């Protein structure tokens, strides 16, 4: 493959892939705002060309809501909800899902607890019954918990051998000391072992509640039917969640690179600093800055300097990422142990060059047209449209998010980009975490 697919953005940033770009063709979707008879709000795009209904939903929650020492609770619960519910054993639940060709699954990131549902239209009634069971009455069977725990432990030990995951985790740990974001996203072996069935049940009761529920639906379904289905699935949940307060936080600057020793010929370096909040008026300009610096195209400056001109890496990137309570500019590179210091020098130099001299008009135009134009590629399947609609709701955007993004990006001028680059690309507080055995790191 000529260019890495950006699943290299591991761990905390995994959800980002489709979110770099906003704007795009409003004709791609016609978002309806639906409210069920029971008062559950949802965004709907009707799409009749495939006999499929796709629903994505989320609750405020995520790993940030896990009790101290019980990291991994949200992930374990997500994995447990489809392993037995109501009167169905785990095997019976899975079998029924298979019989109906339905797909029910759950997931968690740092800030949210997600659900995903796909069904053939002909089986909508029976499939949604399954989802209702998982949401409302999972059995959390002890034997299933032990099996799932074993899988999580196996995964944790595998991740201990993944330099990209290690470097990302280290960067989060050093940048957010004392904050929930510093903790291991999917738990440590010790915390995974500490989670009990009661912890899962308590987390579910606290988090799965109507007030923070967001729903996006796409497919072969009309508003009335969707409303009824949603009331049926979610109507019995408590109205209010019980959420712990999570403070807004800025990444701490760590002056010296922190090295996690890792065997192998390459070092993975993750670098980052304070980003720009989504609600900030400069957010769109910051997206353009980051695109010019390290977006996923070969034109990006970091790609040009580190890879194209010098062959020092197969992948290098920088991007803007917004957690619910923090905004970061973060990037990464994988280079030979002997050359990673050189790569980092080049990267710092590109930060400086872009901050001090600004981009050319052509770079600005090019980045804007990529960000605007490529958004339609995030909207070309039911699953992707549902994902974008859900993400937009979680970010507090309106159903006209496509048009708003496009207009916002179009308004960005070269002067905006120069101004924002100056503050966004300061290198004094750039923190670096490295997994590998780097040589000759500058002090």
């Amino acid at each position, binding site marked *: 493959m000529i260019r890495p697919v950006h699943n*290299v953005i591991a761990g905390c940033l995994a959800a980002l892939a489709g979110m770099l770009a906003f704007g795009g063709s409003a004709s791609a979707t016609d978002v309806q705002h639906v409210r069920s008879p029971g008062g559950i709000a949802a965004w709907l795009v009707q799409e009749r060309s495939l006999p499929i209904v796709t629903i994505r939903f989320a609750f405020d929650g995520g790993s940030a809501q896990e009790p101290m020492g019980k990291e991994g609770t949200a992930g374990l619960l997500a994995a447990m909800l489809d392993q037995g519910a109501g009167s169905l054993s785990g095997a019976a639940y899975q079998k029924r899902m298979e019989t109906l060709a339905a797909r029910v699954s759950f997931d968690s990131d740092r800030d949210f607890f997600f659900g995903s549902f796909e069904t053939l239209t002909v089986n909508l009634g029976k499939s949604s019954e399954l989802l209702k069971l998982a949401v409302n009455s999972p059995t959390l069977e002890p034997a299933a918990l032990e099996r799932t725990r074993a899988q999580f432990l196996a995964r944790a030990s595998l991740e201990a051998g993944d330099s990209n995951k290690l470097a990302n985790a280290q960067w989060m740990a050093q940048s957010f000391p004392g904050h929930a974001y510093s903790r291991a996203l999917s738990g440590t072996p010790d915390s995974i072992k500490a989670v009990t069935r009661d912890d899962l049940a308590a987390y579910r009761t606290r988090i799965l509640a109507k007030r923070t529920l967001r729903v996006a639906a796409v497919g072969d379904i009309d508003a009335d039917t969707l409303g009824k289905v949603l009331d049926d699935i979610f109507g019995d949940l408590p109205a209010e969640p019980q959420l712990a307060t999570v403070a807004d936080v800025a990444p701490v600057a760590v002056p010296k690179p922190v090295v996690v020793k890792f065997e192998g010929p390459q070092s993975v370096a993750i670098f980052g600093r304070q980003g720009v909040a989504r609600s900030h008026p400069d957010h769109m300009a910051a997206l353009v800055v980051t695109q010019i610096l390290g977006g996923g195209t070969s034109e990006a400056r970091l790609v040009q300097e580190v890879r194209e001109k010098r062959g020092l890496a197969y992948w290098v990137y920088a991007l803007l990422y917004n957690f619910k309570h923090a905004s970061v500019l973060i990037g990464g590179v994988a280079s030979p142990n002997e050359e990673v210091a050189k790569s980092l020098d080049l990267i710092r130099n590109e930060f400086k060059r872009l901050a001090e001299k600004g981009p050319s008009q052509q770079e600005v135009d090019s980045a804007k047209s990529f960000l605007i134009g490529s958004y339609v590629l995030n909207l070309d399947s039911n699953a992707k449209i549902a994902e974008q609609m859900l993400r937009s709701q979680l970010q507090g955007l309106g159903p006209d998010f496509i048009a708003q993004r496009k207009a916002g990006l179009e308004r960005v001028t070269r002067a905006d980009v120069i101004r924002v680059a100056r503050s966004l690309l300061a290198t004094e507080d750039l923190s670096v975490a490295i997994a590998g055995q780097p040589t000759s790191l500058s002090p």
Partner: protein
Amino acid sequence: MPEAVKASGGALAVLGVAVVLLAGQPTWSQTQPQRRASEFSLANGMQVVVVPDRRAPVVTHVVWYRVGGADNIAGQSGLAHFLEHLMFKSTARLKTGELSNVVARLGGRDNAVTTHDATYYFQRLPKEHLQTAMTMEADRMRNLKLVDQEVATERQVVIQERRSVVDSKPLAILDELISASLYLNHPYRIPVIGWGPEIPKLSRELALEFYNRFYAPNNAILIVAGDVTEGEVRKLAQDTFGRVRPLVGLVRPPRPVEPPQLAARRVELRDPRAGTLSMQRFYIAPSYKTAEPGEAEAIDVLVTILGDGPTSRLYQQLVEERSVAANAGASYSGVALDGGTINVYAVAGDGVTQGALEQGIDAVLGQFIKEGPSQEELEQAKSSLIASYIYTADNQASLAQRYGANLVIGRTIADIEERPERLGRVSAADVKKAAAKYLNLQSSVTGFLIPTADANAAAAGEKRGEARR
């Protein structure tokens, strides 16, 4: 089991397949599958396939070449993949990187992939820019120039790519070692990215020679999926690719042939980064290209029953009932020119030894070979495979991929689109027969990834220490 019948009836009905319910069992009657894709050829021999998908104003434009990593000659491993990277350098009309930059500015994304059997280049972009993509892709089909300095730099990039995607990942290393043992003679034994010591020897001259020999319209397939009509694509293709001269005398050299396999092989990789003990077994199997009619479909049903998800036999017996494994499953890699593989894998449960893990797997497979599937398992597996055929159509890139990957190994649109009916015809006897024939240790490699416990613990301790600064 009335529900299974209803579900498969539902799934199939939406595909336009006639299903007659007879005495509670689905029966396959006269079937009239819906045709989706259409095809034609250009005068220069280039095959063109159009796959309509009108839900968004987007197209996926892909050119597949019938040449891949298994066509490299000995000592030049990685050459096909290296050339794939170099295809993004300058041509008579395009500057280095220009194709990707133009696509990005138009709001598109592009990339390329090399497999053992094929190399393909794709762009996904707003439909009004299809012509631009086709013009540039046609240009680099014959007009590539290569500059020494750029070739040297890109070689470094590929060396780093190998380190990132193979050398840093114990499972990827084990996978390479297993393939190298599984094939005694066929070049599927050689990694597409190339062996570490051979990549530095790949030169501009070798790349150009390979390019001049294999990159031509009469060795390529164009796939356009998206919001376009056959007529539009035909006109654009004639104006772009249609102007590229075919290569006279283009022949794909025959590949080394795999001799009969007579002995089971084993590979053990010890690695401090391994984490957990796991087992991977690969069996030689036919592919959709080499199998007898219906045989590859039977293998798909077989691995679905054995190892697709939590209801599968391997998972149920090894993970749920016996706690021998933390995870277990099976898969079939069947879209390949010269043969496929069946993969059976398991991650060991806590404290479970290599021997116990392997015995556990062998017990599940042995029982299946002896008894075959139940009628319920058979119908359920067929229904799942058909449903996944439908779900794949939701993703335009996957849809285009389905056509390209099959057509490039010489299958037809009918082969692809008749998949639901062909799966429907698989019988319990077919599955049992495929299991007995292909789950044969004599033509297999069993691989273990073994964590070296001490080094691992030491490294982990060190990590924690250093992380505290």
